[in-house]
């Protein structure tokens, strides 16, 4: 009995501590597993946090672009604006432990990376996580002084009439097709297609069509960067939105920032109408297909709230009064004026002398700088005001009329950004228009409200570089041709005049956004890239 008890005691004694070892071993094992799992979680959380921080830095960089854009908008001279601290950049704390630094045409944005005349904004966004600073860098290119980007804009109705109306809105300096896209067409009131045969951006639909411009005769598709005739479905019943639409600009149904302008459709934004209907067409597909305007090609229709723009005549009158570059021409033409502000009769004397070849000099026989005509003027002779690489701006304080088959050329040196910015023709209208309308031509009437009237004719060609601006609209008579590199903005003085009317004419506006810098307000971003 006692021997058995002893044996049991020895056995128990032998097992003492075994459980502890097992428990310890397992505890260590499980702790190790637990720690490893926690470590994995920690690593994953760190990765996720770094990605989050990277995203934060990107949005901080975007905030920098927005801040820089706001500064350009607020500047009295958007074209000349650079950030105050130069290459050091403007540093601003933003968000939690974040910041951004931006440059406008200085530091990394210096040297016109976006192209001469364009504003370059570069912004670095930073965000911090666990002591690590993570950054993103973006760059935006803008057109300073241009609050809107439309090739052809009218405050009131923009219309095309007649089945032989052709309007092309290609880009100036196209790269590959659609880079950049063609110009936008817009209105605050209405865009009307008066005839279903009207052609807008109709590129050699069935056979090759050509246009004759100042630099030669081109197949129309070449204006958009195509090297050969593009193949696309022209039948809207088959394809109302052919791929080629992506090359063109948009129809902008605009509303002024001051509130809607009443239109026949009763819509708060401008409407698009066909013939005499007052129903708003809502898409390009519907315009081409349902409404049968099968030769109209624009990319999309969109609604935008835009500022109404205007140019003060006094600014240009002052410039003309201090412009003595035309003194010799004035003298040779028999005028005693020294500056470049003329009464209509005086300006007619200048035009007649130039049209006659400037027989008594000077050479070259050109006007220079801002020329101001204080009243309505009617061109009765074909003339090239500034030669083919000039810098003339024609400002008229009345109406401007081109008689039938009379041509006018106002060209600039487009190899420079200042040449591209210089306005071409500005028609301001009389301070107080006449109470009675006078017949001008082809049913057009005027009273000095600020219209640009082309009477038409197959020999009539208006060749202009830069902005064409009118206070009360532009009408283009039958068979006339417009060859413009720049943009058009046409106002309305509460008259019944459409802001733009193409009546069986051919209009080519090669859209140069720099021409809109003449308005000197704000900025529009045209490209954006993420550098890092």
């Amino acid at each position, binding site marked *: 009995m006692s021997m058995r008890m002893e044996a049991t005691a020895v056995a*128990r004694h032998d*097992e003492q501590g*075994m*459980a502890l070892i*097992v*428990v310890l071993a*397992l*505890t260590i094992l*499980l702790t190790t*597993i*637990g720690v490893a*799992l*926690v470590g*994995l*979680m920690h690593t*994953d*959380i760190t*990765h*996720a946090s770094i*990605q989050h921080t990277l995203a934060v830095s990107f949005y901080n960089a975007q905030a920098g672009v927005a801040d820089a854009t706001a500064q350009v908008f607020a500047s009295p001279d958007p074209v000349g604006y650079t950030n105050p601290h130069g290459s050091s950049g403007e540093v601003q704390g933003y968000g939690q432990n974040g910041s951004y630094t931006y440059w406008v045409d200085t530091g990394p944005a210096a040297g016109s990376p*976006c*192209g001469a005349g*364009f504003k370059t904004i570069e912004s670095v966004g930073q965000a911090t996580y666990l002591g690590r600073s993570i950054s993103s860098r973006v760059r*935006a*290119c*803008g*057109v300073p002084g241009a609050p809107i*980007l439309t090739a052809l804009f009218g405050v009131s109705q923009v219309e095309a009439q007649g089945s032989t109306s052709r309007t092309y809105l290609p*880009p*100036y*300096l*196209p*790269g*590959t*097709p*659609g*880079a*950049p*896209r063609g110009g936008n067409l817009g209105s605050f009131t209405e865009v009307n297609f008066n005839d279903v045969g009207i052609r807008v951006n109709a590129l050699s639909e069935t056979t090759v069509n050509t246009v004759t411009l100042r630099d030669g005769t081109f197949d129309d598709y070449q204006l958009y960067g195509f090297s050969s005739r593009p193949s696309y479905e022209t039948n809207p019943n088959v*394809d109302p939105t*052919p*791929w080629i639409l*992506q090359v063109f600009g948009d129809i902008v149904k605009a509303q002024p920032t001051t509130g809607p302008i009443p239109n026949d459709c009763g819509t708060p934004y401008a409407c698009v109408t066909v013939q005499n209907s007052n129903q708003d067409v809502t898409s390009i597909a519907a315009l081409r297909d349902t409404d049968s305007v099968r030769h109209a090609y624009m*990319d*999309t229709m969109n609604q935008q709230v835009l500022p109404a723009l205007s140019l003060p005549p006094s600014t240009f009158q002052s410039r003309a009064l201090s412009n003595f570059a035309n003194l010799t021409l004035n003298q040779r033409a028999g005028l005693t004026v020294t500056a470049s502000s003329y009464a209509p009769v005086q300006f007619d004397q200048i035009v007649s002398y130039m049209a006659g070849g400037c027989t008594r000099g000077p050479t070259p026989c050109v006007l220079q700088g801002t020329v101001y005509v204080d009243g309505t003027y009617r061109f009765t002779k074909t003339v090239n005001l500034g030669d083919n690489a000039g810098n003339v701006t024609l400002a008229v304080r009345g109406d401007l009329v081109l008689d039938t088959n009379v041509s006018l050329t106002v060209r600039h040196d487009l190899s420079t950004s200042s040449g591209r910015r210089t306005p071409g023709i500005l028609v301001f209208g009389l301070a107080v228009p006449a109470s009675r309308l006078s017949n001008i031509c082809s049913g057009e009437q005027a009273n000095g409200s600020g219209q640009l009237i082309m009477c038409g004719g197959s020999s009539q060609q208006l060749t202009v570089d830069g902005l064409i601006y009118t206070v009360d609209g532009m009408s283009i008579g039958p068979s006339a041709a417009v060859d413009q590199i720049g943009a058009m903005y046409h106002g309305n003085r509460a008259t019944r005049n459409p802001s733009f009317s193409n009546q069986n004419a051919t209009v080519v506006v090669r859209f*140069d*956004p720099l021409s809109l810098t003449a308005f000197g307000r704000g900025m529009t*971003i*045209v*490209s*954006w*890239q*993420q550098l890092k």
Partner: protein
Amino acid sequence: MGLVLFSLVILTLYQVFIPTLVLSSNTTERLERQQDVRLAIDRLARELHETTLARLTIYTAGCTGAYEGCIGYVTARCDTSSSCLGALTSSCSGPYFQTPNGFPEWQATIYVWRDTGSNELRRRCDTTTTFPSSTWPPPLTSFTVVARQIDQAAFTLLATGVQISVRERAATASRSSRRYQTEFLNRTVFVPQNP
């Protein structure tokens, strides 16, 4: 007897650890899957920011069967420092091209889609055109894989941007879905910055 008791204690301890292990595994897996789908979207983020809505097409017709979540959009990036158009490139992630006017000069079209057979999110850079194909599928002979184990992908066109939704399924089908989250969805909206 002692061993039995200790075994019971250890089993009890292990049972205490199980919820922790489940939680830990679940969290890790969840983070990994989220990271996966996030990385996939990050791989597309820059080019979606840099494209334009004017040349972005989301395909519904034709995007069935072997394809899901089909989108095409242009890029101004090229692998080479000279123009990309027609050149043999694969990624279109090199320098950014601009026209003298400061506008982006488009170089190629990128297509992204989910291959339903392999559950891969695929990306193809087509340097032969700068216009997204009007019909799906375009030629998709060579591509790179953006993400794997993607069981759902969708693109939706919004007024000002494009919404991308990617869902990844964890490779834990044998585990109880009651205890484990097995599907992870990431939905992000990108606003193309170019006009």
